[in-house]
């Protein structure tokens, strides 16, 4: 497994997809949070103003963190979803899959190594995006921290981000079975929409693709609170998907 991890790490380190996704999320999320906060505080008009009002709860840091929570819930599923799609789908789209047969390193281990590297990258991405957002908020001075427990809120957002990137690993199964990018990208879009619908119907806590987002927004008025069991469904679902993907890689034929 260590050999496979080294190889997958090499691919991820040099991948323009991973570098671009990381940079976009870490740079754009804090800037968008700040932008929406500015629009909301200045009573923005039109569609942007309406959207900002929907995103923002409270004032100052409370408002800033409520926007960040929603950004984390969406971007840390879509971005890592795209990267997971690339990691698994590229072996089929670029026809490198046959090269992973007839080796002393089993294909099951190669798939497992992809997950280990992507999970680690997801953890790093969660820390980076929350840290970058916090830093920007402090530098710009988004307001009073009186209504928030900043350290606890940032820690919760980091955990929520990590849980979101963890559930995004499930996309690897679709990219493998679908043998390429398109089915997996379709799944990312579908699951993002399904999570929104589940939240609207008040069942988001029991839907592992929505639960981390709801957890990120804990404390925001009107948002359903997520319990520990509901949160545990996230790693459980991801584990089942990881196991199914590794089994698929073990049994799959070249077509």
């Amino acid at each position: 497994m260590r050999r496979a991890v080294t190889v997958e790490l090499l691919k991820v380190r040099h991948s323009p997809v991973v570098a671009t996704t990381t940079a976009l999320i870490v740079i754009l999320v804090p800037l968008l949070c700040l932008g929406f906060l500015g629009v909301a505080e200045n009573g923005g008009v039109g569609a942007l103003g309406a959207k900002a009002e929907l995103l923002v709860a409270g004032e100052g840091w409370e408002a800033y963190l409520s926007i960040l929570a929603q950004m984390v819930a969406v971007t840390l599923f879509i971005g890592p979803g795209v990267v997971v799609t690339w990691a698994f789908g590229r072996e089929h789209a670029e026809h490198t899959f046959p090269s992973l047969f007839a080796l002393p390193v089993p294909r099951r281990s190669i798939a497992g190594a992809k997950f280990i590297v992507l999970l680690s990258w997801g953890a790093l991405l969660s820390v980076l995006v929350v840290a970058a957002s916090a830093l920007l908020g402090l530098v710009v001075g988004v307001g009073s921290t009186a209504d928030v427990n900043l350290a606890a809120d940032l820690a919760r957002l980091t955990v929520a981000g990590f849980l979101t990137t963890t559930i995004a690993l499930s996309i690897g199964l679709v990219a493998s079975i679908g043998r390429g990018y398109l089915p997996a990208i379709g799944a990312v879009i579908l699951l993002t929409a399904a999570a929104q619908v589940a939240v609207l119907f008040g069942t988001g806590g029991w839907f592992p693709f929505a639960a981390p987002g709801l957890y990120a927004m804990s404390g925001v008025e009107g948002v359903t609170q997520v319990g520990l069991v509901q949160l545990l469904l996230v790693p459980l679902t991801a584990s089942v998907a990881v196991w199914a993907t590794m089994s698929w890689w073990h049994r799959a034929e070249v077509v």
Partner: protein
Amino acid sequence: MDEQQALEARSLYRTFGDETAVDHVDLVVRPGEIHAIVGLNGAGKTTLMRMLLGMVRPTSGTALIAETDIGKASREIWAKVGALIETPFAYPELTSRENLFASALLHGMPRGHIDPALDRAINRFGLAQWEHKRARTLSLGNRQRLGLASAMIHQPSILVLDEPANALDPAGVVFIRDMLREVAAEGAAVLVSSHHLDQLARVAHRITMLHRGRVVGSLDPLGTDIESQFFETVYRVDVELGAA
């Protein structure tokens, strides 16, 4: 290699829906031997090679590697195998050297042996100029050279190459012929496919003709006008099957 038969197909049969891709093929590749498979497009060469490497499961029959059923082959056995089937091991975002490093790791080479092996392969396969270039920038021919180097980085004793001369220039074709002779002389068992009978005749010890998924005969590599013999056989089989 101690084994008498490095690769063996025992009545290998594979269908895809209604289509029979490989029809009860028996074939043996021994250590120190270059066994070539020749056939037209769609003859079943690639499917046969894929079955021998565990990439495709046979509908019936048995594939053996180092006298072991392919499904039970150990990591030690797979560590002796090198293969290039259709697409070379060349990840576009990695340099030639990084691709070779990745291949060496996945082929189970001891860490301490990898760096000298990379230097050797880069020089041997004429990749020095492109050592630090990303694979996406390489020409098709150089990607093929990189794929061949990746397949052979660990000095395998069982080598399976599907159309290894694909995209190579004339110098590359001569190079790969010399390379195959060299590894076979060192004791490796080589199974190779090609459309080009002339290339095979210059390098193979045995040539098996495959047509419509079946073994339809063999050719003497030292014989004269093997191309005519091949097409006569193919025509005869087509007539027989047409009559049937």
